[in-house]
């Protein structure tokens, strides 16, 4: 088993699973939250663009300083939450050249957006003026503070929308791609693992039955295998997904019903070769019931093979889920990598040139598939040392 610790895929899978379990904690708020303007680039890209930023003011921190080294942000908004309304207090904005503005009185639940005409008017701008440009006239130190008379318990969020946000940018609705990416791991892992688990169980049962019982049972099962193997999978999956519903568990069941054939064949062949082995015949000779032989001898012998074929089957299930989601045949409320690619294609990632919407989910799927392929290869080699290969020098 030590060799497993030397496989890159093992550590990679471990990291992916940990990320799926605890990754949500890296982000504040759910992945559906709109955090910045649509199609924001990743932070590390195009540094001339202003990043999206937030200033939070409250009772404990009534003032905040901001060093601004870019042009004016794409958008500007102030949001006030909590606390009683206190019209005597307001948010003051001081620019590096010493001008100051009254952004908004502290009214509970007030939201002020740079595009509002009333806000522009309160700043003394014409209706077609650019509030963000007026508030950000130069590079330098800005200051936002809560001033005025009286107490106030609440929070002020001043958000400057930039063209850059987060590790991986945002999508067409301004959601954080990094958060969506982490949320999408779950679906791929769940579908990949459970669909193959069920499929392998089905395949093992039918393969054992066909191999051990033989006769018409074998004939019927193997004809079924031939039939299912000859029909193209995707159209059938499409029809069933549309017919039966788009839920995650329906999808897992549909996928497993159409992918048990491989393991059934393997297990049948293995059972056939074992069935005639001497010790099995001896067992039968002393009157051991079929069920006992199947359970206690044939199944344990076939288990390692099953494990390997299962691991190698996971990529197929992951890809099938991705196909269906990409075609829009998955639950739109469930975030998955295929869904992310579907939205990238449907909502103009191309015209926006937002390649960062494309690469993370696509590479995520590919990486997960490669990880399982490598693990499967490792398991196969453990079962059959001949596969370890070796070529003439």
């Amino acid at each position: 088993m030590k060799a497993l610790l030397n496989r890159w895929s093992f550590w990679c899978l471990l990291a992916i699973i940990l990320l799926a379990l605890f990754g949500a904690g890296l982000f504040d708020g759910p992945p559906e939250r709109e955090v910045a303007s649509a199609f924001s680039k990743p932070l590390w890209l195009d540094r001339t663009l202003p990043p999206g930023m937030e200033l939070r003011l409250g009772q404990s921190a009534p003032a905040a300083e901001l060093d601004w080294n870019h042009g004016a942000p794409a958008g500007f908004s102030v949001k006030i939450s909590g606390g009683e309304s206190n019209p005597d207090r307001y948010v003051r904005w001081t620019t590096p050249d010493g001008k100051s503005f009254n952004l908004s009185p502290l009214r509970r639940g007030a939201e002020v957006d740079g595009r509002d005409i009333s806000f522009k008017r309160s700043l003394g701008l014409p209706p077609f003026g650019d509030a963000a440009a007026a508030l950000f006239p130069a590079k330098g130190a800005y200051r936002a503070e809560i001033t005025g008379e009286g107490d106030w318990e609440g929070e002020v969020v001043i958000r400057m929308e930039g063209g850059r946000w987060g590790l991986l940018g945002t999508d067409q609705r301004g959601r954080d791609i990094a958060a969506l990416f982490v949320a999408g791991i779950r679906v791929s892992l769940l579908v990949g693992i459970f669909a193959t688990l069920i499929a392998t169980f089905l395949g093992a049962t039918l393969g054992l039955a066909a191999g051990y019982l033989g006769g018409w049972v074998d004939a019927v099962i193997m004809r079924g295998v031939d039939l299912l193997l000859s029909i193209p999978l995707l159209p059938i999956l499409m029809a069933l997904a549309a017919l039966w519903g788009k839920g995650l568990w329906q999808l897992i069941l549909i996928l497993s019903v159409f992918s048990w054939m491989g393991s059934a064949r393997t297990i049948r062949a293995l059972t056939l070769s074992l069935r005639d082995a001497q010790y099995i015949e001896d067992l039968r000779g002393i009157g051991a019931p079929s069920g006992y032989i199947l359970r206690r001898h044939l199944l344990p012998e076939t288990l390692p093979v099953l494990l390997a074929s299962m691991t190698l089957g996971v990529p197929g299930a992951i890809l099938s889920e991705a196909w269906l989601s990409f075609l829009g045949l998955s639950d739109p409320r469930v975030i998955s990598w295929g869904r992310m690619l579907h939205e990238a294609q449907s909502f103009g990632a191309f015209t926006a040139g937002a390649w960062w919407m494309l690469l993370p989910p696509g590479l995520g799927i590919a990486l997960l598939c490669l990880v399982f392929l490598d693990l499967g290869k490792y398991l196969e080699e453990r079962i059959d040392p001949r596969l370890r290969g070796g070529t003439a020098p």
Partner: protein
Amino acid sequence: MIEIKNLSVTYRRMTSDGRELRAEAVKNVSLSVEKGRFYALAGESGSGKTTVLMAIPGLLPRGTEAEGRILLEGADLLSMKEEELNKIRWRRAALVPQGAMNSFTPVLTVGRHVEEVLSVHLGLPKKEAEGRIASLFSMAGLEGELARRYPHELSGGQKQRAAIALALACDPDYLLCDEPTTALDVITQQGIINTLKKLVDEKGLGLLLISHDLPLAASVASRLYIMKDGRLVEEGPPREIVASPQNPHTKALVGALLDLEEDS
């Protein structure tokens, strides 16, 4: 004359984790084969006899180390390139493989194999080849019309005879026979051995027979070599070897042979 001088062969294999596995299959073997005589090289399986045979036409797996010399009428085959070897293979020395071997390309007729060799080595057009195929087949003791059959349509004995016909196609000086009678019934075995013997006696071929069957080898060969664990442990006329074996291994083998003869 084929002379093998101090031949040592080491098989090499790389494992997937980059180690090299080495196995010395033949150690310092010297023997010779002259035209018009019947030689036999006997030994149990794994003794290295097939490796010696395959080394002659340069058919050892890629990466195998072979030291020593293999001379064909004085020219060293071991140092030859593939193109030079191709001029010698089949025209000078032909191979008769084991009958159980999958020795014919399954999707081509047996006759097509002969035809190809005739056209490649002798430049014979298809029309002329047909007549020659018929005579080759009758020389090997087969009906000519079997040439139109596919390998899987022939019985084991027929396939073996077809292999002999194929080996004779370019009139070689030497025949290298690798267990040509294994997996055949006794009567067919005898027939094939008789055919080979006739070829040596009538056509003056030099023949090297590889066999694990010592009685058979001793009964037909004029000179017998015995190998054990990659080394040549005994050589001489079969009569002498049977009468006074030098090596303990041969003694045991001959002892078993004598027991058999006394029983019968």
